[in-house]
């Protein structure tokens, strides 16, 4: 009795499996697995989460439109995401898993300086395309042809920012800059100091702090004693930048405020309070609601907010844009093989969410691997970031000529 029932079960099961296997997969439908890495927990989680969401939005859009058509095939995009907890060793292991187990050939998205270098030890030998937002000069170079930075770094932003300041706000002579004391922070300070000094500004303070600091009174007391005209919170993340400005105002600072690496004005305004955030200039942040950005960015912002209930920062847009560029290059190359796609990626402008985008910056890194798009200077007025000017990075400017 029992045995018979068992046999029926097995037959039924086998039928189901057979059905499943024969289900509507068109002859050329394939899956393209793309990896995303980032810190999804701990203090830097905001960056990782934005990376993943930016990727998700583009992947979902492509899939909903029927998939990515490359050559004669249609690919369904599948994202594989891992949390590297801001640890370089963990990032290397996660990258190993992505490359050797999950067999991805594209890792689009990573943040936190040291982890990028660690991931590169895995991706470069295996010719895996790697796009990240990590800052620092060590992670792009002719010896790393498969690595790209999808977001403007301090090197691309500092010079146009301070050039604009010199031309349009000539009353600023003395500059004080502060960043966290990690790779991004130190590099940013270096870039800012270099740009500022090169343009004739007097850099009166160049300070760094330990990430996670909340009390900036001591360091601000020291900096403000030098009476700067401009306080640049450079590479401080939104929460900390907000605190620095709030406390600076409490300590009596009445000068101009800059945020060379500002990536999320909403949080800064929230934390600093309207008064302290008033007048903050930023060349890198993207206000997805402003009039100066491409309408596609605004649309992205609206959909992101609808889906995730939080306003996106530049990292989400950058990763979304990176997805854009790579998938377009795949289509141009007619293949998903990274060598061919690499050859198809050129310096001619791409049409992306940012508007026109160019891959360049050979003069800084020795190879064109930096995404360049217009720098929009924004100023926070009345609790909102208002774009006031568009400045082109030197490389983009040269191209337009």
């Amino acid at each position, binding site marked *: 009795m029992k045995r018979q029932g068992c046999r029926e079960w097995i037959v039924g099961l086998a039928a189901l499996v057979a059905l499943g296997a024969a289900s509507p997969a068109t002859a050329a439908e394939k899956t393209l697995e793309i990896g995303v890495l980032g810190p999804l*927990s*701990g*203090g830097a*989680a*905001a960056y990782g*989460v934005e990376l993943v969401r930016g990727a998700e939005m583009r992947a979902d859009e492509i899939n909903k439109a029927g998939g990515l058509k490359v050559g004669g095939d249609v690919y369904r995009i599948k994202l594989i995401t891992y949390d590297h907890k801001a640890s370089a060793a963990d990032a290397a292991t996660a990258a190993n898993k992505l490359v050797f187990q999950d067999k991805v050939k594209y890792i689009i998205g990573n943040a936190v300086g040291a982890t990028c270098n660690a991931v590169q030890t895995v991706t470069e030998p295996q010719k895996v395309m790697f796009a990240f937002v990590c800052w620092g000069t060590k992670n792009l170079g002719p010896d790393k042809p498969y690595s790209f930075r999808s977001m403007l770094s301090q090197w691309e932003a500092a010079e146009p920012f301070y050039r604009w300041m010199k031309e349009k706000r000539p009353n600023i002579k003395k500059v004080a800059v502060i960043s966290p*004391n990690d790779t991004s922070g130190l590099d940013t300070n270096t870039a800012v100091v270099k740009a500022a000094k090169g343009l004739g500004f007097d850099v009166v303070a160049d*300070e*760094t*702090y*330990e990430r*996670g*600091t*909340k*009390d900036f*009174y*001591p*360091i601000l*007391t*020291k900096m403000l*004693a030098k009476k700067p005209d401009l306080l640049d919170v450079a590479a401080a993340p*939104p*929460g900390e930048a*907000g*605190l620095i400005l709030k406390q600076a105002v*409490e*300590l*009596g600072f009445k000068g101009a405020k800059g945020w060379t690496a500002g990536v*999320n004005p909403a*949080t800064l305004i*929230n*934390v600093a*309070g309207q008064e302290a955030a008033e007048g903050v200039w930023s060349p890198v942040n993207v206000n997805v609601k402003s009039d100066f950005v491409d309408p596609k960015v605004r649309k992205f912002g609206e959909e992101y907010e609808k889906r995730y209930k*939080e306003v996106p920062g530049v990292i989400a847009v950058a990763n979304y844009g990176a997805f854009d560029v790579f998938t377009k290059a795949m289509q141009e190359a007619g293949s998903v093989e990274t060598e061919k796609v690499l050859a198809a990626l050129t310096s001619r402008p791409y049409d992306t969410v940012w508007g026109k985008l160019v891959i360049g910056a050979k003069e800084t890194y020795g190879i064109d691997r930096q995404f360049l798009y217009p720098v929009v200077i924004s100023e926070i007025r009345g609790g909102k970031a208002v774009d006031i000017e568009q400045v082109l990075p030197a490389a983009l400017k040269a191209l337009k000529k």
Partner: protein
Amino acid sequence: MPIELLVQALLNGFALALVYVLVALGLTLIFSILEIINFAHGEFYMLGGYATYFGFALFGLPYFPTLLLAIVVVGLAGVVAERMIFRHLRGKTLNAFIVSLGLLWVLQSGAQLSFGVLDKSVPSAFSGIIRAGGIIISVERFVVVLAAVGLIAVLYAFLQWSRVGRAMRAVAQDADGAALQGVNIEFVSMLGFAIGCALAGAAGGLLAPVFAVSPAMGALPVVKAFIIIIVGGMGSLPGAVLGGLLLGTVEGIGSLFFGSAAVNVLGFLMVIAVLLVRPRGLFGVA
């Protein structure tokens, strides 16, 4: 170096250190009663911050009642943690350390998943700036200092003069002896843990408007708390206050001359120096 700058630096250092003293007191209380080091202590600070955020920023309740509510909520969370987890680990310092680490991860991730990763700001309950000579302190911070001092005084009074408080001190000195005298160890442990967590929660609630809240906000205060109680001596209330003042001095003055990394090193060097001279901390009990 103008004298005002020095005084301002000292003031900055002290104001913040006092709040960290609250956190440290909670930690040392738990250690003295249960003999465990609760690595997750910073997460109760974080919970206090979020509780204040919800009450004050979202529901618009007035600040001080919200703070009291936050203290109670975090205290209750402490009771739950003690009953379910730490009660079984009395005296097992190493295991408690691992468990508290697990709890830290659970609470921090839980907060991130529930509240989101971005910093949330809490509006200032008090605005304005007080100036005296060239010295500046915001009203907000001044209130924080007063509240911290008040809480420390209340704790001291409780431990010195109330029956339960004396029972706690008895257990801290000698649990077996106290049990023989008829003290209910279970109850005292539970209450002690709850009060310890409540102190951390109070600190979190006090600093929420000053610094904003985020899931990882508990990481730094707990390290400062450790420095304070080691320097002051584990299990000693006056030690914790003194340790806090020392840390405030070192960090406040240090920041004038050195960069932040060096200041952090100074804090740790202070710990090492004190321990080498007095292996139990300044006022530590054996």
